[in-house]
């Protein structure tokens, strides 16, 4: 007997077709993972079930929860379903809770809005739920506010809210995408246990195939609003039919071959770097305290080396990156690029020799400038920037190097996709032929197939230009293939530094081991994927 039965669900907003004839089902106690890249319609499928679509959306087909077609229900009836029969967990735990209400009130609200219990009983139930999701009373009383909790703890509150009335169906939309790997592992365990305990159906939306393979009983692969392939996890993993599914799994586990690194010659030397942030004073005249984000970090990046820096959020890797870029002052130690000290004072020489590529391909460009102007921005660090033909030749050459066409130079940034924008960001970093490039989570926002292309591009550029880079990422699988050596950072300190393969095959530090163990992994697919 099925719990949720989606049949021929189509959805359009205006003339735009979002979903086309999507059909699949979820049984009680079953975990179904809906996966696909951005724009595949996987989130819209979830919102269709919740009845939380934009006003202009028109849905057709049928969405049966047990014997009720949700599409036939009125808005008032749907309000009675949401929270009671269908619970939902969202992607962004940091913003999913109301900042001005206590966590207790927010969990109780789910119960009270459906008039399921008296307020006193609801309070007891809220307490029991928070205990159940791993937020014990002594540390997390009901009167806590969301801002006093970490991302993982907030996600636990959201889960407690979603399961408060023991819904038959739980929908989780990228529930761990915004979380660190160790937190992700805990949240996934919690979800799995809850499904077993309450015999709920779980529909989990995720782009992360390693999570899918690890957790789901059944997999639904979507692309451009259509269902591409579906089947039980074991069957689908070992017997993929559709080329898109094969491509998706291959891209998730994409490996590149880096050229041999030259003999070690120091390029970037970080020695004893300390970065403190001032904390508010305890009393009006008390001495201000400091939070030490980077604690006497030392390492050397050699010329031609591809160095990785991994760690969870809050470990200090972004702070260290900003200090290396000279954007933040150090409170101790020093950083040198080829012997030149890096300080917060503008030094065009250092800027020219060191460039950076950021995570967000959408926010890091001025939308009013054309590509040629965007990628030549670093020219202001040159004493004699190329002009005229030399300039346009260099633009063309650089765009080609990153896999774009020369006439892309006259376009604006909104005309490009996320992957193309990241190529433009790399072109901007590359155009002054810097000796060192920092990649700060540079592929984290990209879909797996696009990410695979960018990783290939980096490997090609290493071959062509002998790049040295520092690759900062929380994604271990990417770091594993794209770096020669790797630093593991925890609480402001580098706890392990070794050749990348060694780190992954024989981690020494307990934290490194925990990180690697927590990262979900794609199983070895004996059915060779394309």
């Amino acid at each position: 007997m099925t719990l949720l039965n989606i049949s021929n669900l189509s959805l359009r907003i205006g003339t735009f077709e979002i979903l086309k004839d999507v059909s699949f089902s979820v049984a009680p106690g079953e975990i179904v993972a809906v996966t696909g890249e951005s724009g595949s319609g996987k989130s819209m499928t979830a919102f269709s079930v919740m009845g939380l679509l934009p006003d202009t959306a028109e849905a057709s087909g049928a969405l049966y929860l047990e014997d009720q077609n949700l599409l036939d229900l009125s808005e008032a009836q749907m309000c009675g379903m949401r929270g009671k029969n269908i619970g939902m967990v969202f992607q962004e735990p940091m913003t999913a809770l109301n900042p001005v209400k206590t966590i207790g009130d927010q969990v109780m609200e789910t119960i009270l809005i459906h008039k399921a219990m008296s307020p006193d009983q609801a309070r007891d139930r809220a307490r029991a739920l928070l205990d159940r999701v791993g937020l014990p009373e002594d540390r997390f009383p009901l009167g806590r506010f969301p801002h006093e909790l970490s991302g993982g703890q907030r996600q636990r509150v959201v889960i407690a809210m979603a399961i408060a009335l023991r819904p038959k169906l739980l929908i989780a939309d990228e529930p761990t995408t915004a979380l660190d790997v160790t937190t992700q592992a805990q949240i996934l365990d919690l979800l799995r246990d809850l499904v077993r305990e309450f015999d709920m159906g779980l529909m989990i939306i995720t782009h992360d195939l390693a999570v899918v393979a690890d957790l789901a009983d059944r997999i639904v692969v979507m692309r451009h609003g259509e269902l591409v392939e579906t089947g039980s996890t074991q069957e689908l993993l070992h017997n993929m039919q559709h080329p898109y599914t094969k491509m998706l799994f291959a891209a998730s586990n994409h490996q590149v071959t880096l050229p041999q690194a030259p003999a070690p010659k120091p390029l970037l030397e970080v020695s004893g770097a300390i970065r403190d942030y001032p904390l508010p004073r305890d009393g009006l005249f008390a001495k201000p305290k400091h939070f030490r984000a980077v604690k006497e970090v030392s390492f050397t990046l050699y010329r031609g080396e591809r160095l990785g820096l991994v760690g969870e959020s809050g470990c200090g890797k972004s702070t260290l990156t900003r200090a290396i870029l000279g954007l933040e002052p150090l409170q101790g130690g020093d950083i040198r690029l080829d012997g030149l000290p890096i300080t917060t004072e503008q030094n065009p020489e250092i800027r020219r020799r060191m460039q950076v590529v950021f995570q967000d391909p959408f926010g890091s460009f001025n939308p009013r400038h054309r590509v040629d102007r965007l990628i030549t921005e670093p020219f202001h660090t040159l004493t004699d920037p190329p002009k005229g033909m030399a300039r346009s030749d260099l633009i063309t050459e650089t765009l080609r190097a990153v896999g774009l066409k020369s006439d892309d130079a006259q376009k604006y940034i909104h005309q490009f996709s996320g992957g193309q924008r990241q190529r433009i960001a790399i072109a901007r970093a590359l155009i002054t032929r810097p000796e060192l490039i920092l990649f700060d989570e540079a592929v984290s926002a990209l879909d797996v197939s696009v990410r695979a292309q960018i990783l290939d591009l980096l490997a090609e550029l290493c071959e062509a230009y002998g790049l040295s880079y520092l690759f900062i990422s929380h994604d271990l699988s990417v770091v594993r293939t794209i770096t020669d050596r790797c630093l593991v950072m925890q609480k402001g300190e580098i706890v392990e530094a070794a050749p990348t393969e060694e780190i992954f095959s024989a981690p020494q530090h307990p934290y490194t081991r925990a990180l690697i163990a927590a990262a979900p992994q794609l199983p070895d697919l004996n059915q060779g994927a394309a």
Partner: protein
Amino acid sequence: MLRYALKRGLSLTISLAVASLVIFFVIEIAPGDPASFMLGINAEPDTVAALRTELGLDQSKLQRYLGWVGGMLTGDFGMSYTYRTPVAEMITDRMWVSLPLAIYALTLSTLIAFPAGIYAAARRGKPGDMAVMGATQLGVAVPNFWFAMILVLIFAINLRWFGAGGFAGWDEGFGPAMKSLTLPAIALALPQAAILARVMRSALLDILGEDFMRTARAKGLTRRQALWRHGLRNAMIPVLTIIGLQFSFLLAGAIIIEQVFFLPGLGRLVFQAISARDLIVVESVVMLLVFAVISVNFLVDLAYALVDPRLRSRT
């Protein structure tokens, strides 16, 4: 919360001290002698000298500043030169008109703006929203004295429900006094309500797009419930800011309305004192208004902390 209040209180005290210094020295630095300025160019030298002694201009600057501040702290604002009455008395009399008027107008403005803003936000893009937005556009554009004249024309001259102007005085009782403040309060409130309603609407619309509003809907709240329970309090920060600014404005900025309705308020007092070059009155009233504005800001700061728990812990 207590520490937050204490810190805000400290910053209030410092602001007042700085403001008093600035007011004192601006009048001090102004070219020419205050006494001869007050008496005009045709004054006899011995009249000027007498006024200088009366004003204490022969003392040192520090002595005069301390005397002025000390006087204000004990309720002695000096003697008005033109009216020959204690400034404290004049200000108290005027305050009994201006303060109730400001509170009355602000209450009306809030009572109009909140429902209008919430109504418009809940019906974004629909005819109801457009009607409210159109009306507020008009309210922002039309000056309040014009509203005042229209109100007088309709309610005082045609319908004869209200007097056309003047203040009955509190001795006549609460009813008649409030009645004579009603038309001015409405004239003052309408443009303020229009601004406040627009702020309320846009603050709410910002909140409606937040993730936690979607979470609320996923729990089973209707749109309306989500708006009232989760939207409103989060939208209050910008609204409180505007209410604070409006109260300060209403207290001192009602000069034209007071003129139209012949109300003996603070605005008219400042206006008359400036025309009569009565620097003692000007100095005191300006200081009083600064005090009022800073105090209102202090209250707004406290209200922020009540609304948003994040401000309480961030001392």
